């Protein structure tokens, strides 16, 4: 079969791309999608380990990640929509009033 190292490497790369997406992009939606990508990278690692150790727990974990991701997206987008209604722009940097 396939050595898990490669899978982990892939998951790591995907994760890093997700992080880069969160840090670099200014469009709120793209940041959201980057977070989703990071979650998926994590899921991949889970599945790889589940397969490596022959334990289904990994896959169960992926299930829970998915439900959380779904809930998060629902609420997140709702917030984004309400913000968009007032700000007329999706640029994350416009929201900087809450500061020290």
């Amino acid at each position, binding site marked *: 079969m396939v050595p898990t190292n490669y899978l982990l490497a892939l998951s790591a790369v995907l994760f890093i791309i997700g992080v880069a997406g969160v840090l670099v992009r200014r469009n709120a939606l793209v940041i959201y999608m980057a977070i989703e990508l990071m979650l998926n990278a994590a899921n991949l690692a889970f599945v790889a380990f589940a397969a490596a150790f022959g334990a289904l727990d990994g896959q169960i974990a992926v299930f829970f990640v998915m439900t959380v991701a779904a809930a998060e997206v629902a609420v997140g987008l709702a917030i984004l929509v309400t913000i968009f209604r007032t700000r007329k722009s999706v640029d*994350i940097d416009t929201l900087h009033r809450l500061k020290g």
Partner: protein
Amino acid sequence: MFLSETMNQTGAFFHLVPWAVLFPVVGLLLNMAFGRRIGERGVAFVAVTASGLSFAVSVLMWLSLRVHPAGATVPLLSWMTPVNVDWAFRVDTLAVTMMLVVSGVGTLIHLYAAGYMHYDVRYKGDPGRYARFFVFLNLFIASMMILVTGDSYLMLFVGWEGVGLCSYLLISFWFEYDTHGHLSLANALAGKKAFIANRIGDFGFMTAMFYMFAVFGTLNFGQVFAEAPGVAQSHPQAILIITLLLLLGVTGKSAQIPLYVWLPDAMAGPTPVSALIHAATMVTAGVYLIARSHVLYDLVPAAQHTVALVGALTALFAATIAVAQNDIKKVLAYSTISQLGFMVAAVGVGAYVAAMFHLIAHAFFKALLFLAAGSVIIAMERAHHPLPEEGGHEGPHSDDPPDFDPQDMRFMGGLRRVIPVTFWTYLIAGLTLAGIPPLAAFFSKDEIIAETKAAFPLVYWLLVLAAFLTAFYIGRQIFLVFFGKPRSHAAAHAKESPWTMTSVLVVLAALSVLGGLLNWPHPYLAEWLGHTLGEVEGGALNPVVAGTSATIAVVSLLLAWWVYGRRPPESPSQPDPLQRPLGWLFTGMEAKWWVDELYWAVVLNPYVALSRIAAAVDVRVIDETVNDTAWLTDFIGRKIARWQTGFVRNYALSVFVGVLLIFTYLLWR
């Protein structure tokens, strides 16, 4: 309860001694409570009777002692239990001698003050103060009584500081004026100076008591003197240190070098105060202390020598200054310091009886000199600034010079015709001070000089020189004040003081004349004090020494007549005849050898500066550090707050940085 048991089982009145203190206390309480209501006559009456009763108790004690010379200790109340010192009175010949002098001269001066203060209070215009003066005067008598009858060093110390307090209160009695009657702080400052100088002396006294308790385990006279020889062996240094520290206390109280500076300024107080406190009684407390601790001093010759030297040096030093003073009371002040020097020198060489004899004589003639000077000052003042009820208009007399000062001898002259009684009493006291044979001081001073001749030659020569100067400056004063022509309108028109004052002068004059009989033909005093002081020197008159000192006195008086009597100065502004011959020496003497300025520069100004620095340090350094710690937390808080920029991406970045750090740590661990 007390008075009913006139004669208790020991056939003496010793148990009455606490009343010597309680009568003046009752007097002062009465005056304090009803002062205003019973008017000046009432207040004076209460005060004088209180002091008189105290004198009566002293006489009782004297009578009891004649029956039981050993005396007694009368405990009254428990006091400092941890140091086991109680309120206990010791009645013995030394104590009773002092009691008689203090209450006797005290009562006379109370009488004199009743008259003197009447004019002083009217002149300074605050009738309420009359009662307050007599409250303080009675408090002084009470404190002095505690001092002389105390049975332990601690109780003596209570009286010691009590009289210091009274001298402070009475010097700055007219606290809103200066000696010329203008509104100023001068009197208040003089009082403060006196109290602090005394306090420095008391610091020495207290430290002596600490040592004493550490070494003897007690402060009561009886036990200390009993253990003294034993302790002298076991702790050789201890007694020397104790005696020297006591000497520091004595220099503070009896105005010896170096702590004498307060006495000349103490002349700011009303004249009865100067007479009673700063001439007759308080300043002699130091001599009494050394006489009382004679057992300790006899054990340590080195300490005795120091005492003698300090006394002699002070005697000479003060005499030089007295020669060049213009204020009538300042001359007498320095004369007192000088005479105290004689007494301290006497106790320094172990001549305790001579010292006590001179102390008694000095109490009489110096009190008389001061009271007479007071009478002169009152006479000058009333002539210069007559009181309204004597038909005087408000303003000061027009044709007196603007800088007229009733106490300055340069404005006096020829007063013997206008105030004869004061003149004659002053003359007698002056001659006594000079040491002219038949009068009291001749015998007492002669004894002192005779004793020192054998024991300590250097002190002998110093005292002889001082005696010469003493005769000179008193001669100068008499000629300047009473002879020649009046140098101011006030001097020409002065009027004699009322009988209440002059009667006291006459009594004191009589005492000055007869004082010599105390110890001359038959040494009554020597025997009397022998009961307390143990073996005491005979006191026989040494003809050679007596002759020399008498001639010195006469020669010095003639010299004074030659300089001041022959061609008396005509106008106040005329420089002193001694100015030209002595030159800078005279200016030095007149400026009191700049000792006050020295103390200001060396001790007082640095202390003031240091305290200002300390106050500044306290605010700017200690307080600042506290506030800075508060500022620091605020500063850090603000810095961290700025890091919260509000941009979501920044927060994501910092999270990522955290992850990175943890990852690298895990990687490189």
